[in-house]
């Protein structure tokens, strides 16, 4: 995506914020739709398994999901490439201004959309305003609902509690959540780099989804460093950004031929 910095007024201000800091590219030509990223994300970020009933209501909690679409009319349908959809960490996010309690501010330091769980009061306005539909709401305390535990000798056992990531908050009932670009990994890498007196190097760490991708379709890194892998991939001819016409300035670039 090329940014026209000659735009005036609000659009000019938006264009200035277009670059961002952390970004991602997803190569739809390589993606096989295996859902390894979905599983890895759930493990890394303490995502809850909502159970059958709530899944039926469409309350599944996924910070990344694989979308597929069909082209053409039945019976001449053709599947389009798989499209992993996650929070685009918009530079000009529709979710941010609608929050009445500022629980989803824009991070000035990391240039990400944050979700502050302890501040969120659960109006769900942000999810309604998200054009990518990537936010999920905690309708219950999914990590402790009795129906989702196993009764062993009269005591409730939650076996998955042993795999919770201590670096990520276990969200409670009534708060919104979404992809954070694995901000806990960003902080860890920054902390390590700082303790060694250097800058974070490109490829030193990556998000859980990019790490798990067997086809290496997902690349994560600094988009404001022209020499980083992700920014070189993002500036290819194949790069497209979703719903760009809404001026959301997404940080995720999808690579797709044609």
């Amino acid at each position, binding site marked *: 995506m090329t940014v026209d910095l000659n735009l005036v007024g609000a659009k000019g201000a938006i264009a200035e914020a277009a670059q961002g800091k952390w970004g991602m590219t997803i190569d739809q030509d390589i993606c096989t739709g295996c859902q390894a990223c979905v599983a890895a994300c759930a493990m890394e970020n303490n995502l809850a398994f909502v159970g059958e009933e709530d899944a039926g209501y469409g309350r599944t909690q996924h910070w990344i999901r694989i979308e597929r679409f069909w082209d053409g009319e039945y019976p001449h349908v053709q599947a389009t490439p798989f499209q992993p959809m996650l929070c685009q960490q918009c530079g000009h996010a529709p979710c941010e201004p609608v929050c009445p309690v500022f629980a989803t501010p824009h*991070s*000035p330091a990391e240039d990400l959309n*944050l979700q502050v769980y*302890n501040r969120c009061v659960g109006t769900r306005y942000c999810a309604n305003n998200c054009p990518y539909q990537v936010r999920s709401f905690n309708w219950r305390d999914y990590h402790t609902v009795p129906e989702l535990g196993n009764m062993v000798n009269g005591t409730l056992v939650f076996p998955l509690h042993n795999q919770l990531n201590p*670096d990520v*908050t276990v969200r409670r009932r009534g708060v919104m959540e979404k992809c954070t670009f694995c901000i806990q990994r960003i902080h860890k890498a920054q902390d390590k780099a700082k303790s060694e007196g250097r800058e974070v190097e490109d490829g030193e760490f990556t998000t859980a989804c990019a790490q798990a991708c067997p086809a290496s379709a997902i690349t994560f890194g600094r988009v404001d460093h022209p020499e980083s892998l992700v920014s070189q991939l993002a500036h290819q001819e194949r790069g497209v950004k979703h719903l760009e016409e809404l001026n959301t300035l997404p940080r995720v670039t999808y690579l797709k031929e044609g």
Partner: protein
Amino acid sequence: MIRKFFEWVLSPMGRIAVVITVMSLFSLAAYGVYQTQQPPEQPIQFTHKLHVGLGIQCLYCHPGALRGPSPGLPTINKCWGCHQQIAKTQTSPLLKPMVDAMNAGVGFTWVPVAQVPDFVHFTHRPHVAAGLNCENCHGDMTKVTIAENPQVMNMGWCLNCHKSRTEDNFQNNPTSDAGVSAQLEKKRTKLTDCGTCHY
């Protein structure tokens, strides 16, 4: 019915009852607040006063503070490392719980005193690296038996320090260098960003 209730409230007995109710609710609330400020019950009465007074470094028992998020609470083996060489260990009645626990092969389950909620991700390392001493936040351990918090550890307290330490006139020492000023500005952005602690 409601009218009768209000009439009763306005009568002398009713007024006394209201005053008693308000007072008991207030004292209950005060007691609740007081309880949250008390150091928790520990398995043994470990005397920080004595150990720190002897000149043992904080980082000897809590080494994680130098390297990572959690300083760690020592296991009984660390106690035993020194105490097995001290003759008083076998004779003192105060040290008997430790000797018994060591002989039985069970450890202590320390109760952490300075804790942050689950939605706060605190890391000791950058704070130690920034030149803060342990006592800046945890108080003077030569004065307490069981560790206690010298102040309420809440977000305002964190942010006050983060802001004051990134101000240009920190310790009445304004910087005239534009580069240093920009660096402080960048630091303040990072240190007052919600995403630095909440994720």
